């Protein structure tokens, strides 16, 4: 049949009409002439008449089966009516807003003062965690990002308040309120003045120029030869900083050269970074080759993720590096923490603090090098560190097996809840938002509860529940992956199979991305947050459920 049957209505060579034609006649889809033919035929032909009646009965059976009310309106749909008055999107925006506010408040209220006191007392966070998270110099450069989070949190909360109050407000007044709020935010005192934007083949700040604000540069070849009193944000193929930047430099480029002076921090994501000038604060670099020239000077710390790091200049504080190779020829006043394959300390090198080195080969240390103490070397198998050793795979396999077993027990014990969790995980925004919020706030709340004598058991219980949820989060994420691949199922063993498949896939992905350490971390955190949020969402739905209500009559079809 080359054309649709509805338009090519011929008998099939038999004396009877085909089923398609009769169905179209029944559904009033034939043109008048053809319908008349079919009508005449069915009056004369008992077989076609019987088929017509059978199809008609089948249609009625279908309609009846579909319209019949066999189950009441689910409880959560009945209760949803209240919730439906406002868009759920706002709730999740609020969740994100609260989470961001919480993290910011936590940092400014608790961590920053302690860290400032420690720094005042002469302790510069030298451990890995401290260096990455709490060290003031590292955070300073992200101040603008924290401010952004703060503003976003405020805007989110403001918008949510407007949505809540909108029952009492007319559309115009709400708009006015929002605009006023926005104006208010814009009128708030700001650390920097208006930002300048420059783009083009050669975007530059010439040597005679003084930029009194932040500046965004984008283009092929970028250069800062003059003075910038704010921060420099650069996106291009190459960037040369030969002038003077009083703020920070944040750059994404292929080649970056700093020969001038940067009073703030430098955050660089580049292929090659060469520093022969002065950076008054810290340097964070993700690049293939990082070179600190003989004349280069960094007054505070360096955090480096590079293939090769040639350190020939001067570093005022500490070095944290994850490199393939580090060649040390210059001076480091503080500590060095390094994970690398090759570590060479040449005769001209000077290090004021301890050196902690993890690698597959012992360091090659020149006897003329001036070191405060001997290198604290820890041998790590190269393949193990990169997730390729038999030992590593054995443990990965064991862990995956343990998780699958744990998931199996969970699904068997609580099949409905497990299914609901995986279903909730499909709601990506809600799961991630709630995961972030509960994941952070629950242990804090548990800790606060533990301070009081009465709340102690509650705090401990809460913390244990949090831990159980954290361990189960990966199972939920695995179940979700399995569900994506094999589709949804209500069957208990079907869920187990999907979870096992998902966990197996995670078991393959993790060793693969383990080569890139930061990616591994990001994946794990995302998976945990996602699964955690899905569990929290399911618990919330359970708590929020109300009894069923009778179902009204159906819409007549």
């Amino acid at each position: 049949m080359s054309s649709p049957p509805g338009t090519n209505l011929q008998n099939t060579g038999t004396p009877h009409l085909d089923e398609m034609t009769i169905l179209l006649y029944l559904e009033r889809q034939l043109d008048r002439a053809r319908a008349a033919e079919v009508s005449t035929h069915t009056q004369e032909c008992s077989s076609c008449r019987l088929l017509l009646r059978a199809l008609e009965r089948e249609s009625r059976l279908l309609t009846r089966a579909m319209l019949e009310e066999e189950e009441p309106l689910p409880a959560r749909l009945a209760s949803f009516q209240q919730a439906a008055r406002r868009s759920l999107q706002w709730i999740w925006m609020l969740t994100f807003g609260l989470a961001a506010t919480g993290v910011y408040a936590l940092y400014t209220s608790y961590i920053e003062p302690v860290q400032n006191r420690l720094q005042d007392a002469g302790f510069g966070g030298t451990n890995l965690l401290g260096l990455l998270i709490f060290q003031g110099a590292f955070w300073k450069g992200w101040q603008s990002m924290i401010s952004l989070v703060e503003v976003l949190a405020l805007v989110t909360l403001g918008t949510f308040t407007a949505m809540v109050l909108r029952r009492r407000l007319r559309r115009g007044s709400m708009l006015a309120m929002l605009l006023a709020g926005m104006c208010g935010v814009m009128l708030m005192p700001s650390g920097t003045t208006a930002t300048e934007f420059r783009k083009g083949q050669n975007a530059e700040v010439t040597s005679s120029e003084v930029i009194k604000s932040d500046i965004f540069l984008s283009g092929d070849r970028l250069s800062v030869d003059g003075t910038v009193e704010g921060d420099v944000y650069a996106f291009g193929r190459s960037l040369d900083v030969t002038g003077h930047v009083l703020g920070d430099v944040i750059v994404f480029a292929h080649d970056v050269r700093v020969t001038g002076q940067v009073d703030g921090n430098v955050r660089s994501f580049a292929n090659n970074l060469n520093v022969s000038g002065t950076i008054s604060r810290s340097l964070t670099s993700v690049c293939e080759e990082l070179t600190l020239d003989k004349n280069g000077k960094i007054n505070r710390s360096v955090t480096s993720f590079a293939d090769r790091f040639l350190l020939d200049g001067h570093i005022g504080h500490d070095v944290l590096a994850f490199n393939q190779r580090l060649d040390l020829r210059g001076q480091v006043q503080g500590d060095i923490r390094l994970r690398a394959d090759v570590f060479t300390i040449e005769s001209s090198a000077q290090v004021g603090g301890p050196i902690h080195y993890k690698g597959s080969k012992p360091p090659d240390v020149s006897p003329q090098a001036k070191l405060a103490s001997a290198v604290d070397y820890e041998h790590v198998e190269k393949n193990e560190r990169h997730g390729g050793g038999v030992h590593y795979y054995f443990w990965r396999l064991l862990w995956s097996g343990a998780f699958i077993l744990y998931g199996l027990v969970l699904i068997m014990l609580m099949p409905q809840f497990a299914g609901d969790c995986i279903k909730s995980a499909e709601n990506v925004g809600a799961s991630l938002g709630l995961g972030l919020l509960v994941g952070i706030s629950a242990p804090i709340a548990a800790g606060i509860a533990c301070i009081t004598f009465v709340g102690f058991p509650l705090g401990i219980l809460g913390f244990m529940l949090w831990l159980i949820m954290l361990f189960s989060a990966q199972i939920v994420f695995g179940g979700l992956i399995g569900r994506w691949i094999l589709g949804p199922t209500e069957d208990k063993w079907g869920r187990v199979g999907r979870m096992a498949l998902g966990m197996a896939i995670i078991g393959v992905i993790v060793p693969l991305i383990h080569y890139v350490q930061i990616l591994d971390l990001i994946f794990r955190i995302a998976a945990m947050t996602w699964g955690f949020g899905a569990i929290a969402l399911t618990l919330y739905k359970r708590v929020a459920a109300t009894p069923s209500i009778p179902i009204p009559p159906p819409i007549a079809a």
Partner: protein
Amino acid sequence: MSVPGTVDASQAIARARAGDQEAWGDLYREFAPAIFRFCRRALPTREDAEDATMEVFMKVRDKLHQYDSTRPFTSWLYKVAANHCWDLLRRRKIRQDKETEDLDTLPLEHPDASQLEQLIEKRTSEEVRKALDKLPARARMALVLRYYSDMSYDEIADELGVRRAFVGVVLLRARHELRQALEGLGTLAVGGAG
């Protein structure tokens, strides 16, 4: 299609558009059961249907200003629900259906009416619903659009993304698959399914 219950839909819609939350609540109470049932028929699980019902009403709320009040509200509502459910099914790619090209291959047959009668007679609504659950997404959706929400062939074609001329074929194929599913529940084979 008519508006169920006691609420004057047109008035409630007008009030809901003006921001009256009570009117919105009335609309939800009035139409949620029908939309839930639609989603229940179209989607594979009850959980899916519950979520979809909520999401459909969120969309309806956001798009209420787009509703053309000269047309029946229920038609528009079902269209929103159908769009949502079909998008959901397509995103998941659950149980790949036969593509439009396959529709050409449906043979024109004249099945034995008595066998079909026999199959229908013995079947309850519950059994038909169970059989519907076993159908591929497209077949089930086609039957739901036609026999639950009473959509025209043009609307079904638009919804499923097939040519209007093929809608009859999609529906007939869906019926054949339904009969096969019913046979799977323990009855004789009927019709030219296949």
